[in-house]
């Protein structure tokens, strides 16, 4: 067994392995597979609870991952937001001096979650511009809300 606390390096090394086999397309193909086959709980929560399903899903995962984050839910505005002040996954990879993180590690979040949420009527906006410092943000917005209306 690989302990769950060692999963993130295993994940990053899997991306590197796949890219060596088939280029970035092979990594993307895996992310799509994982989204379709592993995120059924997010899909179910959003189908049952609307945008509140995002709050329910990430309340569980981000606390178990001991993330440093702010999470906001505004159901009237149809918006959910995660501001990741220090991502535990990327942070772990940056602290680990004897392995090199996969160069596009942080993009998996955007691909995985977008693939679940867009077909359910939401748009997703990921800001990965500071992901080399383990910071990012992810906004989920009901598609009927005009961009200017949401905070």
């Amino acid at each position, binding site marked *: 067994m690989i302990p769950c606390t060692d*999963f993130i*390096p295993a994940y990053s090394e899997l991306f590197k*392995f796949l890219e060596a086999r088939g280029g970035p397309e092979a990594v993307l193909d*895996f992310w799509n597979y994982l989204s379709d086959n592993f995120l059924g709980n997010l899909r179910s929560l959003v189908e049952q609870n609307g945008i509140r399903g995002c709050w329910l899903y990430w309340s569980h995962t981000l606390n178990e991952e*001991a993330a440093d984050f702010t999470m906001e839910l*505004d159901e009237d505005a149809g918006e959910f937001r995660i501001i990741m002040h220090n991502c535990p996954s990327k942070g772990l990879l940056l602290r680990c001096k004897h392995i090199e993180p996969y160069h596009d590690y942080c993009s998996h979040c955007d691909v995985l979650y977008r693939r679940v949420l867009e077909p359910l009527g939401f748009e997703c906006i990921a800001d990965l511009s500071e992901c080399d410092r383990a910071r990012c943000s992810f906004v989920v917005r009901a598609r009927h809300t005009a961009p200017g209306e949401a905070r």
Partner: protein
Amino acid sequence: MAKQVMRRLASDNEYFHPDFHGALSAGIEYLALRYGDEAVREYLRRFAAAYYAPLKQAVQQRGLVALKEYYERVYEREGAKIATELSRDELLVRIEACPAVMHMRKRGYRVARLFHETTRTVNDVLCEDTPFAAELVEYDPETGRAVVRFRRRMP
């Protein structure tokens, strides 16, 4: 409806997310489906050689006791019972049930057909360039109950 805000610091929680076992299992299943069984072993070999390099070095320097301590620490953290028997030339580890497999069964995640390679292949890598060899003596795919033996290679 009022806006809800949740603010958490890393220090507010313990880093322990067992659903990651399900994600790794999905990765192993994907590799086997797309690239074949040997790709699973090759990936695990590369991962273990890279990430567990410090543990492997500890095995080279301190012998089987390093593996005993590693197993005890990891399985205790995952809330599982194991028994170890250590002698000069052998370490026997009896795992009552694999916490990863049990968590996946409980949560309804698919357990990859080759999930046992996360034990067997990784142990093989940990023993490379050491005087020891690893063997997965018993393994029950339903529960992950296992017996692992590390023994000194015959000269």
